[in-house]
């Protein structure tokens, strides 16, 4: 049996007499990093889409695969998926899955401050409700 952190700190939280609060903290940390990475992927795809594609008639692959922003977004998505599996191994899926909605909040904030997009008040209200809902979910498992 060889896997990362074998006999290490992490396992003692997870296994043994059940989950401790600290294990949940790791789960939430992984969740927020996973969500942030997928939000970054969205922004990178936006950057990739707004970048003009040079004519690359001699190349075989679709031109988008030569776009560094697109490649970075794929890397972010892959890493995010990997971390999501870690999240699911710690948190209940009925709690973690709805919390993915925080991604919409992050993307909206990034669009607001990075791309200077306009954000209507209804959408700020939505952000508030999502955060409230996520707080309920975190509180419900504690």
């Amino acid at each position, binding site marked *: 049996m060889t*896997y990362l952190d074998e006999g290490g700190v992490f396992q003692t939280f997870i296994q043994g007499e059940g989950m401790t609060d600290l294990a949940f903290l790791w789960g939430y940390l992984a969740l927020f990093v996973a969500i942030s990475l997928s939000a970054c992927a969205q922004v990178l795809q936006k950057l990739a889409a707004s970048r003009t594609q040079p004519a690359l008639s001699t190349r075989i692959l679709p031109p988008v695969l030569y776009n560094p922003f697109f490649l970075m977004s794929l890397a972010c998505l892959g890493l995010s998926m990997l971390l999501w599996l870690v999240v699911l191994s710690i948190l209940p899926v009925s709690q973690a899955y709805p919390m993915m909605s925080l991604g*919409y909040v992050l993307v909206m904030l990034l669009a607001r401050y990075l791309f200077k997009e306009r954000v209507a008040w209804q959408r700020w209200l*939505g*952000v508030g409700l999502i955060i409230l809902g996520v707080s*309920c979910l975190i509180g419900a498992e504690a």
Partner: protein
Amino acid sequence: MRRATGYLGVAVIAGALGQLLMKVGVSLAPPLAALSFTLEAVPVLAVIWVSAGIACYGLAVCVWVEVLKVYPLSIAYPVLSLGYIIVYIVSISYLGESGSLQKSCGIGLIILGVALVAHTPQEGSKHE
């Protein structure tokens, strides 16, 4: 239109199913198995469940493009988040997860919030 509605249904169900399959899969493996890259310690069954989950997720992503050709985000996103309810019901029924009023309210608030975040104000009402 009808076709896109079907795709939207597929996206919701495949998205939810993907999460449930991944959850079942990782529950069969050691805690940090996803980060270990050495699959030797991971039960084959876990890999199968997780792969099936990722395939479902991939299917959801593929049909999503078709959905967005017809439906605006202000409809597509809130409908997609109905998958949270599916995951909630299935996971408390079959995966032994806990359900509570607070958890239900939290999920309800999130779905409402998603509907508002995806909301697109009418053209002409630019009072920002």
